């Protein structure tokens, strides 16, 4: 684009001139008045309870799952209640001992690979992600985008299940950002996709998942 360079110069010069009073000084540090004290965490049990409550308030379902056996039962139950026929999951080392693939197959579910850009997940019923952080105040999970956990995994399937380890809990969004800010791509997910564009009536399941499940696995 031949004009790009000149437009850049024009805009930056215009901005510089407009800020005449400030532009002469070097970049000032961000004032302390522009900072806000993040929330402090309560003890882990309270944080977990808050997470489950907030997920519920978002219209999702939260669950505490202890050990592989409970996980197997919960997953089979989810498959039945949500009528899951196909599923894909993020192969996170933390959840490998659960043998998610074999549990799904055991429940009669076809397992798809989430690799790549995730287009093939358009017809998938269930996407299982591993949360990199959990924010109890808002019932939010942070998902870092990787080859094995593409953005589409928590977006195209009709049901989204996020697995959260106790270590993933963060008190506030500030702490979660400190962890993921150097990533090329990540998302904060709080509930299923929603809209209130028609008469402000809250409707779950627009372009993303229609239901949202969070399981705290320890």
């Amino acid at each position, binding site marked *: 684009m031949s004009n790009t360079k000149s437009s850049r110069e024009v805009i930056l010069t215009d901005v510089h001139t407009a800020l005449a009073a400030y532009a002469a000084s070097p970049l000032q540090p*961000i004032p302390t008045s522009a900072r806000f004290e993040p929330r402090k965490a309560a003890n882990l049990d309270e944080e977990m309870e808050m997470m489950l409550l907030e997920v519920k308030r978002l219209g999702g379902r939260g669950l505490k799952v202890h050990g592989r056996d409970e996980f197997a039962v919960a997953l089979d139950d989810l498959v039945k209640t949500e009528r899951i026929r196909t599923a894909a999951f993020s192969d996170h080392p933390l959840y490998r001992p659960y043998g998610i693939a074999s549990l799904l197959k055991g429940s009669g579910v076809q397992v798809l690979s989430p690799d790549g850009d*995730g287009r093939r997940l358009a017809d998938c019923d269930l996407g299982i992600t591993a949360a990199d952080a959990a924010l109890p105040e808002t019932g939010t999970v942070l998902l870092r985008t990787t080859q094995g956990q593409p953005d589409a995994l928590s977006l195209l399937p009709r049901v989204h299940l996020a697995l959260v380890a106790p270590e993933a809990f963060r008190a506030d969004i500030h702490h979660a950002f400190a962890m993921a800010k150097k990533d090329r791509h990540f998302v904060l997910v709080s509930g299923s996709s929603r809209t209130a*564009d028609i008469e*402000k009536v809250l409707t779950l399941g627009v372009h993303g998942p229609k239901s949202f499940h969070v399981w705290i696995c320890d």
Partner: protein
Amino acid sequence: MTEKTARIDFRENSRNASPAVVAATQNSTRTALRKRAAVVAEFGEERWQELRKAGHEIRMHALTHLDRYLAMVEEKVTAAGGYVHWAKDAEEAREIVLGLATERSVRSIVKVKSMVSEEIDLNPALEARGIRAYETDLGEFIVQLAGQRPSHITSPALHMTKEEVAALFCEKLGIDACPIPEELTEHARLRLRPEFLNADMGISGGNFLIAETGTLLIVTNEGNGRLSTSLPPVHVAVVGIEKVIPDWESAAVLLKLLARSVSGSKITAYSTFITGVREGGPKEFHLVLLDNGRSRILADKVAREALLCIRCGACMNTCPVYNQVGGYAYGAVYQGPIGSMLTPLLLGTGLAGGLPFASTLCGACAELCPVMIPIPEILLHLRKRFVEGDTFESPSVPGILKAMAKLGRIVLGSPTLYHLGGRLGKIFQAPLRRGDWLPSLPPPLNRWTMARPFPAFQGGFRGWFKNRKAAVKQAEGKLHE
């Protein structure tokens, strides 16, 4: 929006506002305000005020160092494999996007709701080149189908009832749609899913640009923002230069303010953070930085605070004027109090100078504004610019009104002329007087009586004051009779 030359006539537009639109608007804004109040109360009023102050400081710091932070964004985005384009005005921005699309033989585009895209009139330009652009936000999808413009910056179809949406879907999509929001939403999901999967390009705006890492932050609730920026091979983001914020701490504060102010949620369903290109994502990322009059606003020390806006729409929801006339009366992309500032600032007071007067200056907007923009002060500043002119623009008021205002000042400033005026008024009003009122006055005074009657001249106040004791006695006497 910059190419439009017609003057915005708020008075005429508001007369044409249909009662149905006004009723639907009030219904929606009431709900939004109620939810917002509940979630702010949960956060704690005192903490909320601290958060607003921090939000204001962050945005002021970013604006007053904008050139440095813009250069930082460019450096970081480029280092992460993205391309940065600079657009002085709407035409240049459109040409950049059209150039990118035609070079890649793009035929179909999915779009995320973006006010900047409306501001630069992108859709008609794409259509003219034979490129189909699908608005994917449900509200935008509805207004695009209806061939309308959004009537609210965060709820584009706020003025339509579910019955109207159902009728629209029946007509345009050829389906049998019931007026149930859940069903209508499902129809939109089914209609748009293939478009997401097959689009050649995704176009978004951006809520913030984080200078520290060159990260584009997009918040959506529906998931369309994520689909449009993940699946197509090319992602183009068109973002106003004022959207830059310094760092991630700032992003944390502003995210807390934004969701609560928009819809009364603690957080939006999805916040997406995109830094350049990544493996498995779109192959190309293009960031178009748009000026389109913003650097001119920045030079105005009073008006520049209008650029702090984070587009939450709370000022519109609470505005008594917006609630009486609906969004279309503002005749432009941005409506309500924020529109009354931004539209004359972007288009000039010659075209939109009437909008700052479309306010009672009650200040409800400034009380709610999450970044504490002094909206009434800026509106007064723009009214002054419209009437008297300043270093930025010459006055736009017709000569006759200015002459009458001057005459009024002379008459009101002199007791003799004032008394004479009162006496003459009493004589001249006789043919127009109906009881205690003057229902219509000759032009140009009829601008008042078109909206409401003028009270008839009743005589001098001093005379009434002098005789009031006698009048009271007479009245009391009558009571005792």
